[in-house]
């Protein structure tokens, strides 16, 4: 054992790494709980990777095979229903955890200097997670997903200037067809994971070398208590992961994900078409906009506004100069609270409407 350790140490300097871990500390204060949500998101991502790989063993993309292969998986393959249910549930929980992680980082202003890059990579990861959700939703090729994808890509198509080419790029043609399914499959299992992994690597690396951010405390330079990262924080983290895994298992077993009806390109849209819950607030707002505001189409206006809001949110470390100087920045706190209320209210309205 010792010799093995030495063998590696001589080559890759293990002891430096161990020194680093030994001295790593995690601050303790009344907002410490929020530190765990990044880890939970990471854990659920790992679950996604594993369950996704398992699904790949049976899934066959294509308009004539996708639905059938999932049906086969769910009815014939031992525990196939469970793997699929876990993948779907874990995806939703992951986005939920990412939302919580993002807003807690935002409200504690942890994005401030020197963590701007961590915030931006985090936001990109968040957008990627939404893209994962959108592309994965279509893969079972059922009716709900088919129409949701039609609507979603049509909305993308009304982005000014690049809308039309973007729509063709996404759909692989003018309409949602088997070609769209092939593309979404490629995005979902190859392109997105590749980009996501790189971004995640940068994000986690930065978190490690910069350590945890502490809440702004402009009054006095109060020193926070801290606990060792290893083993104290790691054990807590693992315990929480275990709890999350149990919640996931309960949900997956007792509320198995439905497959629905196979998509038919020549059937009327059924009632109850709605996107996944995390798109619902945007969708609801777009729906409530009048068809024309002044001379701009309501849709287009909505998309442009959401686009601008998302972009500003992503560069907030550069807008919020005060917190980088170590001062309170009330304005940005209010903006954050407003965003949370806005999202919750319109999600509920959208949910009640469907």
């Amino acid at each position, binding site marked *: 054992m010792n010799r093995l350790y030495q063998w590696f140490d001589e080559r890759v300097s293990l002891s430096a790494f161990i020194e680093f871990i030994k001295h790593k500390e995690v601050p303790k204060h009344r907002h410490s709980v929020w530190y765990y949500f990044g880890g939970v998101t990471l854990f659920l991502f790992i679950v996604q990777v594993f369950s996704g790989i398992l699904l790949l063993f049976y899934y066959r993309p294509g308009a004539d095979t996708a639905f059938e292969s999932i049906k086969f998986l769910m009815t014939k393959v031992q525990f196939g229903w469970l793997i699929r249910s876990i993948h779907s549930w874990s995806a939703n929980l992951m986005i939920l955890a990412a939302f919580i992680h993002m807003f807690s980082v935002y409200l504690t202003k942890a994005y401030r200097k020197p963590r701007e890059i961590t915030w931006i990579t985090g936001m990109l990861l968040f957008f990627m997670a939404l893209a994962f959700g959108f592309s994965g939703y279509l893969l079972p090729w059922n009716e709900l997903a088919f129409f949701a994808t039609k609507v979603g890509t049509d909305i993308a198509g009304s982005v000014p200037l690049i809308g039309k080419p973007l729509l063709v790029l996404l759909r692989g043609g003018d309409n949602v067809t088997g070609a769209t399914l092939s593309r979404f499959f490629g995005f979902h299992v190859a392109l997105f994971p590749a980009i996501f992994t790189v971004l995640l690597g940068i994000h986690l690396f930065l978190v490690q070398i910069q350590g945890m951010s502490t809440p702004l405390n402009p009054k006095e330079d109060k020193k926070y208590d801290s606990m060792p990262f290893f083993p104290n924080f790691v054990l807590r983290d693992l315990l929480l992961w275990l709890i999350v895994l149990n919640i996931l298992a309960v949900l997956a077993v007792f509320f198995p994900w439905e497959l629905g009806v196979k998509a038919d390109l*020549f059937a009327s849209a059924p009632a109850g078409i709605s996107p996944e819950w995390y798109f619902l607030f945007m969708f609801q707002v777009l729906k409530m906009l009048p068809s024309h505001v002044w001379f701009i189409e309501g849709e287009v206006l909505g998309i442009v506004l959401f686009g601008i809001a998302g972009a500003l949110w992503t560069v907030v470390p550069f807008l919020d100069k005060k917190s980088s100087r170590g001062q309170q920045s009330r304005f940005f706190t209010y903006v954050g609270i407003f965003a949370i209320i806005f999202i919750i209210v319109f999600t509920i309205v959208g949910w009640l409407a469907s």
Partner: protein
Amino acid sequence: MDNQSSPNGTKRDFLKYALSGGILAWLAAIFYPILAYLNPPKVTGAQVTSVKVGKIGDFENDSGTIFRFGNQPGILIKTKDGEFKAFSATCTHLDCTVQYRQDMGLIWCACHNGRYDLSGRNIAGPPPRPLEAYNVIIKNDEILVTKS
């Protein structure tokens, strides 16, 4: 030294332009094929301009049927008085496929509760434009839908 700097400068400028031009051309040579590859070829099947939908007797009064018009869905409606009407079934809002609602006597889109009257006009909900109307031609009992 000094009086040599200007010819040298132009030489350097020339190199700079040649080099950056070269890099741009090189990037274009890589990305152009990729972008072109991603743009799917237009399916050049013969443009469908008319389609046989069925016999008059196949349809009941006060009903709507989705049919294939090329690779797009169309909707054929037989009104209460037995009159035939045909439209594109693609909702002008966000692309969902519409349906005939007997209870409302309207064309309805389930996605966002869009409504069209029986001449295809958008009368309620988010749709911004009327449905594209097709011509219905009845020839010896056969219903033919055409697009002009």
